[in-house]
């Protein structure tokens, strides 16, 4: 691994198609370039939304207006949520690492529909830019929250329709990606790769893709209905015309709850790839992890009412949704058990990917347990719409999906770019991230339980201590984010050259050069053994 050798093959990054330069990227149907384009766009939007979050924390360091007024604050938390949910977290792992590595992991040259894949990226960018436009065109930025609850979203004089349209188009991009991945996994696995010889990240992408296809359209039509309320006074959600605002909540959450499984399933898939590699032993309970992904997708489709326990839905409805919410926690717990068992007795190498993956488990567990508090009817009454909820979902989404993304980029970076980053700086960045994250979000559990509402611009003085601590955490976290990204950007150009398999992984991506050639494989491999086969041990599943 000398740092002065050129690559000995033409990588996908060097490949010149019909067009050169930027146009070459924008017209490329190569899944790897598309994955990178998603990654660069998502990183930019993530940083924008993170800075918006930082502004919210600065505002909340003291009661009353600090750096903005109430209306501005409402606009900031709305766009922070819209960007993070629809542009960063829902597409994030699938569009980035799914695009980059799904075909390689199953031994294929590309996805089933490469042109559709590029089209999806254009749809994604269109939706993202429309979302940005909502901040600057015409009236005030939308102030409804990313959940667009009626009646306010139908009445607010802000640029709601821009945001609704953006979310609609982003949803369409998500649907097409899911469709592409389902067909890819069904039709393009290498010879010999039966379903149960497929690695577990593709399994998670498969389960996710079904949710993308079957849940997203419902929020699509719901957003159109809100537009119809605003423009045509259609009345579905307007009590004055006979409509029901709770019906909006049902329709909205029928998608938006499964959406969180779109966020977390690929995250679980990513860490499931990391644990065996850095333990140098097969995944414990491969079958359980594969099936639990499907179980989470299926059961998770039917728990949406737990966002509505205090909205006035029927007793039996509340009972049923609470019951299923507890059930859906079980397959997740199974995965945690399997990840820990994978590491147990293994030859542990605490490199940055594993560090992030282990902290993923810790943060996901906290998020998960606090989800149970929210899922139980009695305690939900106390915690609904408080800062407790905010802490819960940031632990699950940011601590879960976010840290899994960081784990994934540190795992696959050498493969993507053929270079290695500094472990020292990766670990230091991790320290800031992990510390900052917990200092930022944990106090919100406490003040939430004490009664601090969410989405409130102002608060009583008794909550200030928690808010001050939280804001300090935000600064630590932001430093960590910039450190991590800087380390990786530096390594992109100046890192030591990485060989094909710096981590001694055994899945297919480690058998091809770093960076991979355009069509991934010189010859499509023939698969003969299970995916996490670490040589002649007696662990053959």
């Amino acid at each position, binding site marked *: 691994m000398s740092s002065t050798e050129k690559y000995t093959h033409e990588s996908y990054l060097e490949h010149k*198609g019909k067009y050169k330069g930027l146009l070459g990227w924008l017209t490329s*149907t190569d899944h790897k370039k598309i994955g990178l384009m998603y990654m660069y766009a998502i990183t930019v939007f993530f940083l924008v939304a993170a800075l918006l979050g930082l502004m919210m924390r600065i505002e909340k360091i003291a009661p009353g207006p600090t750096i903005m007024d109430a209306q501005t604050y409402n606009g900031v938390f709305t766009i922070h949520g819209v960007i993070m949910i629809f542009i960063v977290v829902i597409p994030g792992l699938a569009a980035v690492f799914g695009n980059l590595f799904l075909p390689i992991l199953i031994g294929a*040259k*590309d996805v*089933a*529909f*490469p*042109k559709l894949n590029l089209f999806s990226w254009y749809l994604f960018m269109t939706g993202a830019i429309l979302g940005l436009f909502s901040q600057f065109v015409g009236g005030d930025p939308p102030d409804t929250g990313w959940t667009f609850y009626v009646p306010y979203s139908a009445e607010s004089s802000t640029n709601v329709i821009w945001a609704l349209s953006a979310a609609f188009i982003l949803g369409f991009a998500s*649907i097409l990606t*899911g*469709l*592409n991945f*389902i*067909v890819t996994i*069904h*039709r*393009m696995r290498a010879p010999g790769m039966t379903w149960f010889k497929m690695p577990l990240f593709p399994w998670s992408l498969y389960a996710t893709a079904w949710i993308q*296809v*079957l*849940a*997203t*359209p*419902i929020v*699509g*039509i*719901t957003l*159109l*209905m809100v537009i*119809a309320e605003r423009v*045509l*006074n*259609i*009345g*579905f959600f307007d009590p004055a*015309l*006979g*409509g*029901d605002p709770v*019906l909006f909540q049902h*329709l909205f959450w029928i998608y938006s709850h499964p959406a969180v499984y779109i966020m977390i399933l690929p995250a679980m898939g990513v860490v499931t790839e990391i644990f065996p590699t850095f333990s140098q032993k097969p995944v414990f309970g491969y079958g359980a992890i594969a099936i639990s992904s499907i179980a989470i997708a299926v059961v998770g489709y039917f728990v949406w009412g737990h966002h509505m326990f205090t909205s006035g839905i029927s007793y039996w409805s509340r009972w049923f949704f609470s019951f299923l919410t507890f059930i859906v926690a079980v397959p997740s717990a199974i995965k945690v058990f399997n990840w820990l068992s994978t590491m147990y007795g293994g030859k542990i190498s605490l490199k940055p990917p594993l560090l992030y993956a282990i902290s993923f488990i810790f943060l996901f567990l906290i998020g998960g347990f606090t989800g149970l508090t929210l899922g139980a009817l009695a305690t939900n009454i106390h915690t609904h719409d408080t800062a407790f909820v905010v802490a819960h979902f940031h632990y699950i989404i940011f601590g879960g999906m976010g840290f899994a993304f960081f784990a994934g980029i540190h795992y696959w970076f050498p493969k993507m770019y053929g270079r290695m980053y500094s472990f020292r700086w990766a670990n230091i960045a991790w320290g800031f991230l992990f510390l900052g994250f917990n200092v930022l979000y944990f106090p919100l559990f406490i003040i939430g339980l004490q009664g601090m509402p969410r989405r409130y611009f102002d608060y009583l003085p008794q909550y200030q201590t928690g808010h001050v601590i939280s804001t300090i955490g935000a600064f630590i976290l932001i430093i960590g984010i910039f450190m991590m990204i800087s380390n990786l950007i530096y390594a992109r150009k100046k890192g030591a050259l990485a060989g094909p398999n710096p981590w001694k992984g055994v899945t297919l991506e480690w058998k091809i050069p770093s960076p991979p050639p*355009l*069509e991934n494989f*010189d010859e499509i491999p023939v698969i003969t053994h299970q995916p996490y086969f670490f040589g002649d041990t007696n662990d053959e599943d």
Partner: protein
Amino acid sequence: MSTHPTHNEHHDPEGSKIGMWLFIFTELFLFGGLFLVYAVFRNKYSAEFHHAAEELNAFIGTMNTVVLLVSSMTVAMSVTAIQKGNSKKAIGLLILTVLAALIFMVNKYFEWSHKFEFNLYPGSDVVKGLDHGEILFYGLYYMMTGLHALHVLIGLVLLIIVIVRLKSGRITKDHYSLHENSGLYWHLVDLIWIFLFPLLYLIT
């Protein structure tokens, strides 16, 4: 070792078909949201829905149903034709399908404009003065048939593209995925109408 991957190398009609079915599922769920709203409000306001539906012209609705069913047959026949290698017949049948689609749209135009004449549209003073259930019925009527008509138009465009490609020889007995999948899309448009028709027109 190949240099540039051409997408013609990767020819998987079964995969393309699965892809179109998946897309059809998304359309079913898109309309499904509207059907759900319909179900909730029909349950709450059954008498008023019944009353409002009397304004709809069941005759035109039935005609449109027949037109779409026939068009489903002609497009299915056109797929049979290309499978048998008969491009000319396939084109002819597709042209009939397109004509049927146009008849449907013309009927829809007359239906809607007739209602507009009486100021029966969402947000109008007439509609606002109606009972709650009736207001919602009209909202659902316009949104559901409007979204459906949009899909008829999309289907129409797809079918025309297929005709053009049949004529140019790009679609043949061995390469007719676009044709078959466009046919599936057209059947979806028919399928949705099969449910819309009784729920909106025949609840009197």
